[in-house]
């Protein structure tokens, strides 16, 4: 018998955790002498109150959908891919190479190539940690952390010494050619008669992110590969028994995970900055962890959690702009969400389980 109904596990527990995190965040805001209600109003207005705000919210959400899905897919194979940051960094490099060196006739072709390169580079960066985990039992968490740092150093080197245009002081690549410019939501929605802010960076990558959600859903719950990933995630000895190769599935799952993280680059590098800068990922790889935890590793959950974090990000930026609350407030909120939905999960779950158990005993 389960200790509590599935809906409680999937929705009630994260919801309560989220409320706790929100309550604590409010306390933090009060602690630094600001008004939490006013802060929330400002955040809502700034991120959801205009198409400009929505444009940024959705732009951030697009990043987080990719990294959240990346973490989720790895979680299904019981791996904690903390390397989204590095994989997305490398994805950016892939996108930059695809956009800079090939004269694309049209963005639709460019984005296909960019997706391919982003996923390829992201997956490649996940390969070694995956291989070491599968073949040599090196803990994937530690290796992916190390690979985040190595990726940062590598990108640093490439931008400073290789891709920086002659005479530029910025460690950044040149602008991508106009043909590689992705249409923004403004351009996409205008033909439909919908007025959307032209300044906001949300772009066609959002559509790809939604497709990625559907892809991950089908992959995990409908395909044979997904079946094997989940089986391995639940029990390695069982997987061996069933003739599922742990080495192969571990590596494939991590390649998919790294590819998804890398795909993020089409949004931030190709869609927004239109050139590759240092630290373009801006911690989205880590936010993917929070997003996956909150979304219970389900694409639908990831989608909504990503929107929530997009809101937090854009709202936080607005706060920093209009008040003296530093942008770091978002980092704190993010930490609290990870803490409550991830690490302190049992704090919420155990009393709930007891509650359900008592009800059931009384019922029967």
């Amino acid at each position, binding site marked *: 018998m389960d200790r509590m109904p599935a809906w409680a596990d999937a929705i009630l527990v994260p919801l309560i955790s989220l409320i706790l995190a929100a309550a604590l965040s409010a306390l933090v805001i009060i602690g630094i002498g600001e008004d939490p209600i006013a802060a929330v109003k400002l955040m809502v207005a700034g991120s959801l109150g205009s198409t400009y705000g929505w444009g940024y919210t959705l732009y951030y959400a697009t990043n987080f959908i990719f990294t959240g899905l990346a973490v989720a897919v790895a979680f299904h194979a019981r791996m904690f891919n903390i390397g989204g940051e590095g994989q997305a960094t490398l994805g950016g490099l892939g996108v930059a190479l695809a956009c800079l060196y090939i004269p694309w006739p049209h963005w639709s072709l460019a984005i296909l190539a960019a997706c391919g390169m982003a996923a390829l580079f992201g997956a490649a960066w996940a390969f070694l940690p995956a291989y070491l985990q599968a073949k040599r039992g090196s803990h994937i968490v530690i290796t992916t952390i190390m690979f985040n740092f190595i990726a940062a150093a590598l990108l640093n080197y490439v931008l400073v010494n290789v891709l920086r245009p002659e005479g530029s002081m910025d460690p950044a690549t040149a602008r991508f050619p106009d043909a590689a410019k992705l249409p923004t939501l403004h351009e996409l929605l205008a033909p439909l008669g919908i007025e959307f802010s032209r300044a906001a960076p949300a772009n066609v990558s959002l559509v790809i992110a939604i497709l990625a959600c559907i892809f991950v859903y089908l992959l995990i719950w409908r*395909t044979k590969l997904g079946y094997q990933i989940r089986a391995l995630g639940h029990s390695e000895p069982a997987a061996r028994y*069933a003739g599922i190769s742990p080495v192969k599935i571990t590596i494939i799952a991590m390649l998919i995970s790294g590819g998804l993280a890398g795909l993020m680059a089409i949004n931030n590098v190709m869609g927004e900055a239109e050139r590759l800068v240092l630290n373009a990922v801006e911690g989205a790889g880590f936010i993917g962890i929070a997003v996956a935890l909150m979304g219970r590793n389900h694409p639908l959950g990831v989608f909504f959690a990503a929107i929530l974090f997009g809101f937090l990000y854009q709202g936080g930026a607005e706060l920093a702009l209009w008040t003296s609350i530093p942008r770091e407030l978002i980092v704190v909120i993010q930490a609290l969400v990870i803490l409550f939905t991830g690490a302190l999960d049992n704090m919420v779950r155990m009393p709930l389980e007891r509650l359900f158990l008592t009800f059931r005993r009384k019922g029967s």
Partner: protein
Amino acid sequence: MAQELDTGRQATAAPAIELKGISKAFGPVQANKDISIRVMPGTIHGIIGENGAGKSTLMSILYGFYKADAGEVFINGRKTEIPDSQAAIAAGIGMVFQHFKLVQNFTVLENVILGAEDGRLLRPSLAKARGVLKQLAEEYELNVDPDALIQDLSVGHQQRVEILKALYRQADILILDEPTGVLTPAEADHLFRILDNLRREGKTIILITHKLREIMDITDTVSVMRRGEMTATVKTEGTSPEELAELMVGRKVLLRVEKKAGNPGEKVLEVEGLTVTDEAGVVRLKGIDLHVRAGEILGIAGVSGNGQSQLLQVLGGICAATGMVRVNGASIDLSGKYSDGQSRRARGIGHVPEDRQQEGLIMDFAAWENIAFGYHNDPRFGAGIFMSHAEMMADTEGKMSRFDVRPPNPRLAAKNFSGGNQQKIVVAREIERNPDLLLIGQPTRGVDIGAIEFIHEQIVRLRDEGKAILLVSVELDEIMSLSDRVAVMFDGQIMGERLPHETDERELGLLMAGIQGEPDKPVIEAVDEMMARKQAEEEAAHNG
């Protein structure tokens, strides 16, 4: 309710242990329900019951490992609170767990003093313990090298360390949870001699075991548990194995399987020179030769840990090996590179693994998902890269009804079925594929008597349909009653083959201890010799 009874011996003294009304629930599982028990000092008290009956839970509560939800404990007549193991140790209780609680990379000495050190510094504690240990070892024939690392010791020696730990803490009450499951019959005999000595010194012993023979041999009184309750406590002298079995499962038990004489045909499985070396470099199988014919059940007997598991794993495609294996005359790849569980299944090999919860099922998958486990690439469950959920669901419903799985709900997660029903799901999945060769390990471990009968019938039916069956079980009774031929494994080798009606448990027991043809040699010496040789080989492998 348990029948109160006087155990004789020291009728006037207070009981060494008395438990009153102990209850314990793990979430929705009620492991112990209002259990009461009395054990008189200087006696050996047996506890029997099916798997999951709650024996270990009850003893763990006495030892302070779990906290009871309700109930009281009296030690030597005094009510004693046992909130943790510290309190139990202080009350003179020692326990040897079913799964040893040792630190693998510590020395014997360090394990013995852990938690019982004298003072804050280690050196004096270690020195003192070394002396005491030597003395105890002599007194009770419990020799172990105090400086050996636990991970280098055999299971039997590890168990000695556990007993030494208890004695070092001056336990007067010793609890042993299934101590013989991992021992050869000879090692078990040795253990029982020690227990007898301890009893003679006035110590009180509680012995949990599944083996009715052991209960009859050594205990003074015995309690029977069923489904979390204590069904009876009786004097050993006044009972019989049949009565105990009945008390255990709640109805009369048929200890033998009805089956017709076999009709063996072609060799389906041929194994020659099968050798397996594990990751640590230990040779687990040392050149196995055997064959199984169509319409025949070959039973593999042996103490667990002597290579049976590896044999099943190699044949099932889980681990690599060298040597030759032919199925229906065609040899199969053993290197692990070109074939795995999937391709073995395609070759007509079905496999019911020894551990259904760890291997045979994904406990968090629903029954319908588990039905495709191992056969997920079968086109029947969906063409291309996608799986057909409808097909899997229909298949599950059919199997559930034919195998009487309860509740017949395909959407229930595997973990929510009882052990017996979980096993039925696995057996249904493997048998209904109609394999030419069925590998089946511990088919009835932890399964109630009703389900045992059903599963045994299915195995015999498959044989009668002309399929080959390789059966591995640690239960000698099961091997004897099901098999057409019995092979005994010891230390990675086949010690010999017998026909069940031409042998007896005594002979098989000797084979299981690695003794062939020299029945006059004192068993214990032979075993020690054998173990020493085994250990030396392992060491050599480690070093090499």
